[in-house]
């Protein structure tokens, strides 16, 4: 059992490393929004995969670690608030849809919800920093971009999760 816990920790660490790299890569895809720090939310796909492999706790853990690491490594504390707001809101709504997985929602739905609410969370953070809700005029653009990235990463995760499950079950036994 102890042995398996270590192995699970190794897998979660690898997933966190992937999330950090994805967060870095998404910096190369600026959104048509004049708010620096607002990101696509690609790294949420890792939390999504962790959610369907290990459950909500791991999804949250990876997201928090990713926010901490990326803000220390390159993006700085000022945009950590966007990462954190986007990540918290994305993962929360992913978990909500994950709980409804027997009621006609698949991992794609969870990913889309995560994509949309990642951006809603970031806008809430921006309006908090700026003291005005004006930034919500970017919501239509960001909602559509969240749906598109969410659907794309969801379809990817849908292919990835069953394969990873197989590999991990062999690894853990």
């Amino acid at each position, binding site marked *: 059992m102890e042995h398996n816990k270590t192995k699970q920790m190794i897998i979660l660490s690898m997933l966190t490393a992937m999330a950090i790299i994805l967060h870095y890569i998404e910096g190369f895809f600026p959104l048509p929004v004049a708010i620096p720090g607002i990101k696509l939310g690609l790294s949420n796909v890792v939390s999504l995969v962790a959610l369907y492999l290990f459950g909500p706790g791991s999804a949250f853990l990876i997201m928090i670690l990713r926010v901490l690491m990326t803000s220390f490594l390159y993006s700085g504390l000022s945009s950590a608030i966007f990462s954190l707001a986007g990540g918290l809101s994305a993962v929360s709504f992913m978990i909500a849809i994950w709980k409804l997985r027997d009621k006609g*929602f698949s991992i794609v739905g969870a990913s889309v919800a995560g994509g949309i609410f990642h951006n809603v969370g970031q806008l809430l953070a921006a309006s908090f920093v700026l*003291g005005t809700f004006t930034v919500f005029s970017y919501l*239509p653009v960001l*909602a*559509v971009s969240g749906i598109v990235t969410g659907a794309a990463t969801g379809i990817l995760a849908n292919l990835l999760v069953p394969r990873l499950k197989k590999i991990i079950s062999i690894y853990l036994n």
Partner: protein
Amino acid sequence: MKKNDVLLILIGLFIAAAAWFWLNGKQEPTEGTVVIYKDGNVHTTFPLSSDEIITIEDKEGGINVVSIKDGKAEMIDANCPDKLCIHTRPAQKNGQSIVCLPNRVVVEVKSTEKDVIDGVSE
């Protein structure tokens, strides 16, 4: 992908489209006011028809220069690292805004007549 996933996507797209039309629908160039916010507070207010160059400075060294001319408000200079605010399209219609997050400056055009969007953007 299951049935409810598709439903979720469609509802999301519908809300985005509705919000877009609501925000952009009735935006005839108005007898507007340019409101400049700094750190979340109203810094200055000018009529959109004025001809002004406004410099907004703060103690931390943040500088933004806003120009109001020909019924348009534009960020013409800023010392923020990313310069996104300078590249934002000029604001000329009700509800349009220019945001400079590093210096916490928002330039917003508001219709002088009270309307729906005012209530929301407050």
